[in-house]
């Protein structure tokens, strides 16, 4: 019997260790798993490496996690957002490390981890400062930079609906990084608006097959 539903947010984030690489879904606030992030703050893990497109805004979600001093490093494409203040302050003070990755490379590095590939060549960033120290290669007349897989110890993601097998559908553009992160972590934890019965999701419209999911917690609307 497969039942990936857990009963509490505490159970959902149990076992996340200090120093863990945590993939956090969302593009800005949309699709960001704020319930899980706040549960992670409660849970207490520290020295975290956060992989996310942005680095939080205001004082909730990732910004709250940063503000609580739990994050050693952020790997993202765009740390600034409208209303972001915490990351800027910590970064300028040298209190958090930043690895800046082009957005498509960020997504593709996680896909490579999830898909069992050893790395890939992308034209994005080739020849620029962000490619310094990386292997670069001309393939069929064009310059590419070699990028390695980026795997998470944990992925925290948000979806709209899930069944007990962990099949997921998303809401509009809240999909964004969530499906690729689900593939790319040893432990994938999902907060969902609601859970539904097995077979209730259209098999042709499931976006994340349950094979990529470990824990599902029902939380209702976003924070």
């Amino acid at each position, binding site marked *: 019997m497969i039942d990936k539903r857990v009963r509490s947010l505490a159970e959902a984030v149990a076992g996340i260790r200090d120093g863990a690489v945590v993939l956090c879904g969302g593009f800005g606030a949309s699709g960001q798993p704020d319930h899980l992030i706040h549960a992670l703050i409660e849970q207490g893990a520290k020295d975290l490496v956060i992989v996310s497109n942005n680095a939080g805004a205001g004082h909730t979600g990732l910004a709250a996690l940063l503000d609580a001093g739990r994050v050693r490093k952020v790997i993202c494409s765009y740390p600034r957002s409208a209303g972001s203040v915490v990351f800027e302050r910590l970064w300028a003070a040298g209190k958090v490390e930043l690895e800046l990755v082009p957005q498509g490379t960020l997504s593709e590095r996680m896909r490579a981890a999830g898909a*069992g590939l050893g790395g890939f060549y992308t034209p994005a960033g080739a020849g620029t400062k962000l490619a310094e120290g990386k292997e670069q290669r001309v393939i069929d007349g064009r310059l590419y930079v070699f990028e390695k897989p980026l795997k998470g110890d944990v992925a925290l993601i948000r979806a709209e609906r899930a069944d007990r097998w962990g099949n997921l559908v998303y809401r509009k553009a809240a999909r964004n990084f969530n499906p690729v992160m689900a593939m790319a972590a040893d432990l994938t934890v999902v907060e969902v608006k609601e859970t539904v019965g097995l077979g209730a999701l259209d098999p042709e419209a499931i976006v994340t097959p349950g094979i990529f999911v470990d824990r599902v917690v029902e939380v209702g609307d976003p924070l």
Partner: protein
Amino acid sequence: MKPLSRRQIAWRAAQDVADGSYVNLGIGLPTLVSDFIPPGREIVFHSENGILGVGPAPPKGEEDRDLINATKQPITLLPGGCFFTHSDSFAMIRGGHLDLALLGAFEVSERGDLANWTTEDPEWPPGVGGAMDLAAGAREVRVLMEHTTKEATPRLRRRCTYPLTAAHVVRRVYTNLAVIDVTDEGLLVREIVPGMTLADLQAVTEPTLRLADDWRPLEAPAV
């Protein structure tokens, strides 16, 4: 001495498939395994053509050309099952998301090398399908095969005589005569059909066999 039938080999392999696991069945003999999963276990079968949740064959007359397994036989979809692209299907395979791949083989070596894609017959084109991806990517690979060829040549070899599908990947082999584990110290016989001695089995096996201390008779019901 009574060798197992092909269906009995599949039955025996099915007994070892853990509840809740994600399993790919290779073409041919392994596809029979799904018929023999012990009651009460919920297994999610993956088919390389983009299906999770493969169910039993449909009743005669209800076949659907768009519901087929890797062998291109008609199947059904269980509640909770879903469809996805080949890209995602092989991301699952290569990315280590399948708990188990049960594959057919021409030969397996004592080191766990697998040969199942070509006999180098000049009259007969080779076909690799998903075998190399499965062999490289599944968390565990087990093989189902006849112990020898029709010409009584051993299929368990010191070194494979056919080109490899992958090196060092097979962990257990189910044949019509025995269940054999591939260990760092070579082949270890776990089960052997009643009436057959280790010496009898060794006579149809190229590499040296050892008998497990806790070996058992290999018995299967009439299926």
